[in-house]
């Protein structure tokens, strides 16, 4: 309890809200790195997932690659990028490129698998009906499959975003900024108030991300889907089978 109050006191101290090591700066660094990785991951994984779901081609390969990707710990990925990126760019190679790269890799599998699963779950009869009405393939994808798959696809982005926000913390191990600094410096200096303040900030940011995207997800769910009202849509069919996705 003393620790918790100590940490809250640390957070309340105005001295910790200014300067290079201040909370606003660290929070900003953390959010920028996380957001950049997620945006790049979406740009790569979403189109691939949608395309695989629509055509059914390479589905086996993609899902298995995603599962292997999931087995690579982010800290390991970061560490493996680091010697190479340092040789390429002494300035950014030590911490920025490895963290950004590992975070992007971390975010790709859930986004891709959920986009794919979302499209797969769309009732095939609907797609056939659309085709029978003379819709082109692109229209089927854009007007039928994507809107129906959206809640599940955003579920993947949500999983990815929460993981990335949580894991960007590790960048501090390589000397990057962000909220992880308080954890690493807290341990190194045995300054446990700073450490716990960092824990509170990082956990808070991760939970905030989860809640914020859940709200977006609800708003993006078409009314027709909400009316079904059986079980939460984001979970539909995403019960892990043979090491598949847990949508969280």
């Amino acid at each position, binding site marked *: 309890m003393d620790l918790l109050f100590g940490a809250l006191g640390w957070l309340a101290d105005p001295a910790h809200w200014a300067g290079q090591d201040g909370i606003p700066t660290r929070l900003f660094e953390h959010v920028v790195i996380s957001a950049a990785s997620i945006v790049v991951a979406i740009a790569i994984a979403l189109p691939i997932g949608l395309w695989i779901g629509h055509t059914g081609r390479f589905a086996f390969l993609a899902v298995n690659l995603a599962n292997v990707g999931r*087995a690579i710990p982010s800290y390991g990925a970061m560490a493996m990028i680091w010697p190479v990126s340092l040789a390429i760019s002494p300035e950014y190679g030590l911490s920025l490129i490895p963290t950004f790269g590992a975070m992007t890799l971390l975010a790709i599998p859930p986004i891709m698998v959920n986009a794919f699963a979302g499209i797969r779950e769309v009732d095939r009869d609907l797609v056939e009906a659309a085709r029978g009405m003379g819709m082109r393939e692109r229209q089927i994808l854009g007007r039928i499959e994507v809107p129906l798959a959206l809640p599940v696809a955003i579920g993947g982005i949500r999983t990815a975003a*929460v993981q990335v926000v949580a894991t960007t913390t590790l960048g501090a191990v390589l000397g990057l900024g962000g909220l992880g600094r308080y954890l690493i410096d807290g341990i190194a200096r045995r300054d446990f108030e700073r*450490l716990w303040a960092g*824990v509170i900030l990082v956990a808070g940011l991760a939970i905030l991300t989860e809640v914020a995207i859940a709200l977006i997800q609800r708003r993006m769910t078409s009314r027709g889907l909400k009316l079904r009202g059986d079980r939460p849509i984001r979970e539909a069919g995403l019960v*892990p*089978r*043979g*090491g598949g996705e847990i949508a969280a």
Partner: protein
Amino acid sequence: MPDRPLVDWAWIGDHLDDIASRTVQHLAIAGMAVAAGFVLAFVLALAIRRWPRLDGPIVGVSGILYTIPSLALFAALVPVTGVSLLTAEIPLTIYTLLIYIRNIVAGFRAVPADTLEAADAMGFTSGRRLQEIELPLALPLIIAGVRLASVSTIGLVVVAALIGDNYGGLGFFIRDGINTFFPTKVYVGAVMSVALALVVDALLVGLERRATPWARARATRAVA
């Protein structure tokens, strides 16, 4: 640094013993958490089966715990439990809970209502129904949960290396490699931990096949 090759094979050859003992340590640390988490989650899942209203709170709390970054949870425990095995095991166990509970509960729910009614009509007690009907039918999803929990825990052990040399298994090589600017160590730690996760996953797939012979029989019939 750049004058050294990325992978120094001679170093690996000289340190095979070291690598083997770190691998064993890695497995032991992960194994304890995977086992402890399973026991805890199984009890909670049984509670949910008995009192379905507990589903929301239990899954909700384990979901919130799952969201806490691993480095943060390890670090948060250092002032409380010191640099000890417990500091590594508590977070690792906590992270398995959500995966397990979700899968075990989904496994129970996947049992068809007709099957349950038939068992009740035949006079099965609740305990016998659980043991002879529900558990075997839930087994594929439960084992899927064990697979996910194992792979994720083996990956997380690496992070535990940041709290102390003796609690990170292969993660020790990664941390030490970064600190001493020696990429070979980093690659040994990272590649071995991924390989370990994949091997354990493959073994569990084999276990699943053996534990559910009826699923295989059905698959062959479907093909024929």
